[in-house]
């Protein structure tokens, strides 16, 4: 019976049909890893017959680690008033942008904690200042839960928050904060309050309707069941049918170290299986990224055989995964070496997946990067002067401003 169901589901994929939840589940639980990989690879090859594998040079900047959401899977956040809580100053962010441009980058991936002392105006001022200095530099910023946080803080609808951010210079929205889009799971992870599954989807719908392109993500390996991973993928597929606004999908496994939730991380084989499943279910997504930041370079490269067609970002900086103990680094030279070694053609891209050209280091000399930068040097507790321009909401922030 099961093998008949597997055969039917495989046939459906090969015929270009759409997988329902039961088909997806049977493939995920009963097909061997190699067979699942072969199927995903065939779908990837059909969608990208040119054998191009893309990557982007950008910088993952976390503007603050202060957060009131307190997700129990997060090792990155600090409570309001914590001595090691930080907010980056505008000048620090400008310096990071200059460094990014120097190595051929053209975008910041800007995300951070839900800091009650940063009102909407702080983001608007920052975005305007960036665009004044570098009009063509792209801001891929603020995941849906951050938009919802700003909506609550400013008492404006999420749609209005997005419109104002776009007017200030926002170019696209990253798909962070999705975790698993099933409310049972979100309640367990203490992230239901920051955004329910429907709220996350709604923000993305607003963004797409406002003309923004966004990515979609999934963090698996906590308390969810396989059918809930599939439910997550189906919710994304449904919105993509409706708006076509997602450019790419990225999945990674929960990194348990230093988190309240704790436990153990999912294995490399589970990652490859989950990635392959996503390629099969998300039949209306063009691009799937490899998460070498969480899986390491080797499994990251193997992702290209299990459905991925993009090596993600030459990150330059990373803070969130590092807080949970993983600290892999690949600069452009390494990413290109891995792509070519796997038999693909490397091309630089932008967030819209428009090809920008060949590797930068083949056109001019760029410094090699052997370690990812951090948001700040350890022990730097400085408070940016411009914070005083924005009325604090937290008690700690009010005390600081009145001191």
């Amino acid at each position: 019976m099961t093998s008949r169901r597997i055969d039917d589901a495989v046939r459906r994929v090969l015929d270009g049909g759409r997988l329902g939840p039961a088909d997806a589940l049977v493939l995920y639980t009963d097909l061997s890893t190699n067979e699942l990989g072969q199927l995903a690879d065939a779908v990837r090859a059909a969608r990208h017959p040119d054998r191009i594998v893309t990557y982007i040079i950008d910088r993952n900047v976390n503007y603050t680690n202060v957060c009131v959401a307190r997700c129990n899977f997060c090792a990155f956040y600090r409570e309001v008033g914590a001595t090691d809580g930080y907010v980056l100053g505008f000048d620090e962010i400008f310096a990071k942008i200059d460094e990014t441009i120097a190595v051929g980058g053209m975008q910041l991936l800007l995300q951070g904690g839900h800091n009650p002392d940063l009102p909407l105006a702080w983001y608007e001022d920052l975005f305007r200042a960036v665009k004044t200095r570098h009009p063509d530099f792209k801001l891929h910023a603020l995941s849906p839960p951050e938009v919802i946080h700003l909506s609550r803080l400013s008492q404006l609808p999420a749609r209005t928050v997005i419109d104002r951010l776009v007017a200030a210079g926002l170019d696209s929205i990253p798909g962070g904060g999705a975790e698993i889009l099933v409310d049972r799971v979100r309640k367990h992870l203490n992230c239901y309050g920051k955004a329910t599954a429907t709220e996350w989807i709604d923000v993305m719908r607003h963004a797409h309707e406002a003309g923004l392109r966004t990515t979609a993500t999934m963090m698996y390996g906590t308390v969810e069941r396989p059918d809930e991973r599939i439910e997550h993928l189906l919710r994304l597929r449904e919105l993509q049918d409706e708006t076509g606004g997602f450019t790419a999908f990225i999945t990674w496994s929960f990194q348990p170290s230093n988190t309240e939730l704790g436990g153990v991380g999912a294995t490399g084989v589970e990652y490859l299986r989950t990635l392959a499943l996503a390629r099969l279910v998300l039949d209306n997504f063009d691009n799937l990224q490899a998460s070498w930041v969480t899986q390491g370079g080797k499994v990251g490269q193997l992702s290209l055989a299990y459905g991925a067609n993009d090596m993600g970002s030459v990150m330059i900086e990373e803070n969130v995964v590092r807080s949970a103990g993983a600290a892999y680094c690949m600069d452009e030279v390494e990413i290109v070496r891995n792509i070519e070694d796997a038999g693909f053609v490397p091309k630089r891209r932008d967030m819209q997946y428009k090809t920008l050209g060949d590797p930068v280091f083949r056109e001019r000399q760029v410094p090699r990067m052997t370690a990812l930068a951090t948001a700040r040097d350890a022990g730097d507790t400085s408070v940016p002067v411009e914070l005083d321009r924005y009325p604090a909401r937290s008690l700690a922030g009010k005390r600081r401003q009145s001191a």
Partner: protein
Amino acid sequence: MTDASWFEAVGDKLRDGVSLSESEIAVLSETRDLVRLGALADERRRRLRGDRATFVRVAEATTTDAVEVGVPRQAGELRLAGCPATDSLLLQSVREAARIAGDVPVSGFALDELVDLCRRDVARFDDLVAALRTEGLAYIAEARVERTEDPAWVARASAAGVPVARWTVCDQAADGNSALQRVARWGGDAAVPALAPLSRTLSEKPSTGYEDVRRVALARLLVDNIDSIQVDWRRYGPQLAQVALTFGADDIDGVSPGDSEEHGTRRSTLGEITRNIRAACLVPVERDGRFRTLRTHHQ
């Protein structure tokens, strides 16, 4: 040329026990169709070894610090690193290691080091190996393929009472595949229970994931005179070692006998290895340094 039907034809040949041609081996050695290659290797592995994946917890010590380091009770093997400069120091190091190891098998040394120590004198080699056996050496830890000119030394060691535990490949460079073919050619005269196809030496340019799993798969497909294809847990890490199990490997070597302290978090290594093996849809079987089954870790 290497489409699905080509791989099916190669799979049929392997199933029928027909040797692959030089050109087929060359194509497999270069293929970027990794998952199909992996499927061939996995099928062969399952045919030969079923759904078991073995692992061994190894206490590592140098020939001079074994007594200080001691042997954790969870260890299934004590492996000595390094090779003393004289016969007497060599024998003494094994004697002391065996004393502290108790029932735990002791292994150590590379075959070529022993051959060099004996200045290639056959009689002296036989005497030395016999003496090592008397002192308690269960296995010679490795025979390095690139440093083995004559596989007859492997058979000599075995005949003198201490077999070689594994073939190892030193060079990461492209000729690693020719090392596999050499092992395959040496056949039954140089019978060794395991082959560790991934390079033991770190190079400036680290190998990629594709290179590693392709090498593992080729080892399984090209070398049919060896039972176990091994990947080292400590050297290659849990992620790659686990993925290698789906590309033809069936044995995880070098698992730490203590807890692992990764990213400041204490984790049970046993829990981690068994979880990884199960997540690869295999049954974890713990063995000792003599390749004897100690325990099947059922869920």
